[in-house]
C-alpha cells in the first residue's frame, strides 16, 4: 500500500482541508505524517517531563523517548554513534551552529566555499562569518541549468580552504549535487564538507557514511515531521573539537566565573530544554520513512516530475529552471512565465486549490545568477499523483487567461 493515494491517507490534513486540494509546496513545508502526530501526542500525554537529570519514572520515560528518537535519526542518516546526532530547532539553526562553532576554529584568511545556489540559510551565516572573522568566502558558480559548475572547483577550492558548505539539493532548481566531486575536492586540500540536506530528506533516507561528508543538516518539517526541530549530524571527532554555539542549562559540567567545562557532544550543542516532543515526532516519522520502498517511490516521483516538465514546456513564453535530466534533479520544478508575476500565478492556482509558491525562494544570489526576478515553484512529494500535476497545468492555463 504505497501508492500515492494510500500514502496520502496517512496524512490527516488531506482528509480535512476543502477540496479540490493539490499540495505542491512540500519543498517549503511537507505535510505531517500520522506517525509523527501520534508520537508527539503520546509523548505529551504519557511521558512528558524535562529530559535533563530527572530520576522519577516519567522523567526516565521522557529521556528514553528522546534518546530513542536520536537513535532513529542516526539510522535514517546511516550515521555512526547516536552521539553524532544533535537536535536543533531546524535546518537554519543547524547551519548557524556550524557557521559559529566551526567558524570559531577558523583564522582570518582561511577560506570557506559555498555555492551560488545556496538557500539564504546556508549563505547568510557564512556572510556573517566573513564580515566578523575575516575569512574569505569563495563561491562556486552554477551552469545555465543551475547545476554546480564542478569544473570551477579547481579554481575555487584552494589550499586555504577549510570547509565546503553546499546544498545537497537546490530548493529552486532541484539540482542534486554531485557530492562525490565535492568531497574529492575537499579531501584534496584537507577541507571539511557540510551538506545542507533540507531539500533531500523528503525523498528518502540518506547515507552520510557513503556520501563521505562531515556535517549534514536538515529540518523536520520538510521530512513529513514536526515544525520546530531539525538535526545537525557531524562526525564525532569533529564535533568533539568544536566549542559550543548557544550556552545554558544541560551542556555544562562545572560552571563558575572562572569558566565552564562544556559537556561532550551532543549535549554541548543542545543548550536548554530541547524540542523534545518534536524530536520524538521526527524520530517516529523517520522510522516510518525507513520502511518505505524508496526505489518505487523515487521512480514515481520522477515520472511525475517528467509529466510536469513536459506539460510546462508546452506553454509559450515559459522558461524552465534547472536540469532537464531527472537523474540529477529532485521532483521540484520552478519556472518563469513571460509577463506574468509569480505571485499572481500562485494566487490564481491557490484559488483553484493548487498550492504552489512564487517568489525568490530565499535564494536571491541564485536567482540573480540565473537572471530571474522570481519564479513559481511546484515541489512534489510521495503523496502527489497525476491529478496534482494535471491540476497545476490546467490552473496555469487558467492563470494565463485570467491574468493576461
Amino acid at each position, binding site marked *: 500500500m504505497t501508492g500515492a493515494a494510500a500514502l496520502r491517507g496517512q496524512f490527516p490534513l488531506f482528509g480535512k482541508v476543502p477540496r479540490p486540494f493539490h499540495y505542491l509546496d512540500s519543498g517549503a513545508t511537507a505535510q505531517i505524517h500520522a506517525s509523527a502526530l501520534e508520537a508527539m501526542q503520546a509523548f505529551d500525554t504519557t511521558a512528558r517531563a524535562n529530559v535533563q537529570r530527572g530520576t522519577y519514572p516519567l522523567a526516565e520515560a521522557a529521556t528514553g523517548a528522546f534518546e530513542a528518537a536520536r537513535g532513529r535519526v542516526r539510522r535514517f542518516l546511516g550515521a555512526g554513534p547516536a552521539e553524532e546526532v544533535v537536535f536543533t530547532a531546524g535546518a537554519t539553526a543547524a547551519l548557524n551552529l556550524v557557521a559559529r562553532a566551526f567558524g570559531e576554529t577558523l583564522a582570518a584568511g582561511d577560506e570557506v566555499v559555498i555555492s551560488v545556489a545556496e538557500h539564504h540559510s546556508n549563505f547568510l551565516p557564512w556572510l556573517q562569518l566573513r564580515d566578523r572573522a575575516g575569512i574569505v568566502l569563495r563561491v562556486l558558480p552554477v551552469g545555465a541549468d543551475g547545476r554546480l559548475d564542478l569544473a570551477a572547483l579547481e579554481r575555487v577550492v584552494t589550499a586555504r580552504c577549510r570547509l565546503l558548505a553546499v546544498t545537497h539539493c537546490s530548493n529552486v532548481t532541484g539540482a542534486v549535487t554531485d557530492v562525490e566531486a565535492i568531497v574529492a575536492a575537499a579531501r584534496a586540500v584537507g577541507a571539511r564538507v557540510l551538506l545542507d540536506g533540507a531539500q533531500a530528506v523528503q525523498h528518502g533516507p540518506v547515507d552520510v557514511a557513503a556520501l563521505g561528508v562531515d556535517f549534514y543538516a536538515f529540518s523536520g518539517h520538510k521530512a513529513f515531521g514536526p515544525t520546530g526541530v531539525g538535526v545537525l549530524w557531524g562526525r564525532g571527532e569533529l564535533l568533539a573539537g568544536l566549542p559550543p554555539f548557544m550556552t545554558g542549562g544541560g551542556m555544562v559540567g562545572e560552571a563558575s566565573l572562572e569558566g565552564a567545562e562544556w559537556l561532550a557532544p551532543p549535549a554541548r550543542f543542545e543548550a536548554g530544554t530541547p524540542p523534545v516532543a518534536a524530536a520524538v515526532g521526527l524520530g517516529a516519522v523517520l522510522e516510518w520513512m525507513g520502511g518505505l520502498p524508496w526505489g518505487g517511490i523515487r521512480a514515481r516521483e520522477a515520472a511525475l516530475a517528467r509529466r510536469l516538465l513536459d506539460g510546462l514546456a508546452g506553454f509559450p513564453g515559459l522558461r524552465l529552471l534547472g536540469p532537464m535530466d531527472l537523474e540529477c534533479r529532485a521532483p521540484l520544478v520552478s519556472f518563469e512565465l513571460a509577463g506574468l508575476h509569480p*505571485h*499572481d500565478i500562485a494566487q490564481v492556482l491557490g484559488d*483553484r486549490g493548487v498550492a504552489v509558491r512564487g517568489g525568490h525562494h530565499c535564494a536571491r544570489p541564485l536567482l540573480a545568477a540565473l537572471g530571474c526576478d522570481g519564479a513559481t515553484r511546484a515541489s512534489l512529494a510521495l503523496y502527489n499523483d497525476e491529478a496534482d500535476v494535471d491540476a497545476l497545468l490546467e490552473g496555469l492555463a487558467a492563470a494565463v487567461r485570467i*491574468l493576461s
Partner: protein
Amino acid sequence: MSEALYQQALKALAEAAHGAGRLDDADARVRLDNPLCGDRITVHLRMAGGRVAAVAHETRGCLLCRAAASAIGRRAPGLTPAEIAAAAASAEAQMAAESPPAPAWPELEAFRPVRGHPSRRGCVSLPFQALRQALGDAGRRT
C-alpha cells in the same frame, strides 16, 4: 474567485502604468521592497506649494502592486499630503471592510476583492507606503 480579484479594471489599471518612469528633478526618491516577495518600487516625487507637483514610479511587482502604483500615478498629482494619506487609508479600508465606504479614488474600488487574501494586502500598500515616505522626506527638506 481569481476572476474577481483579477477583474478587467484592475488589469487595465496595471497595464496603463500611469506615472511609470523617473523624475530627474525629484524632491524626494524612496525605494521600498516587499521583502516577502521581492517586489520593489521606487517613487519619485516633486512638490510645489504644498501639493504633489509630479510623481513617477519604477515598479517591479505583481498586478496588484502595479495597479496601485498606477492609481497613484494617475491621481496623486495636485493632491496635498493629507489627501494622499486619506487615499492610502481608503485603499486599506477597501481591502479590510466588508462594506467599505466609497473609495477616495474610483480606481481603489478595484482592490475590494483583496479582502479575501490577507497575504496580498502588502502588494497594494507598498506603493502608498513609498509615496508617503517620499512626502515625509520632501516635507522635512522644506
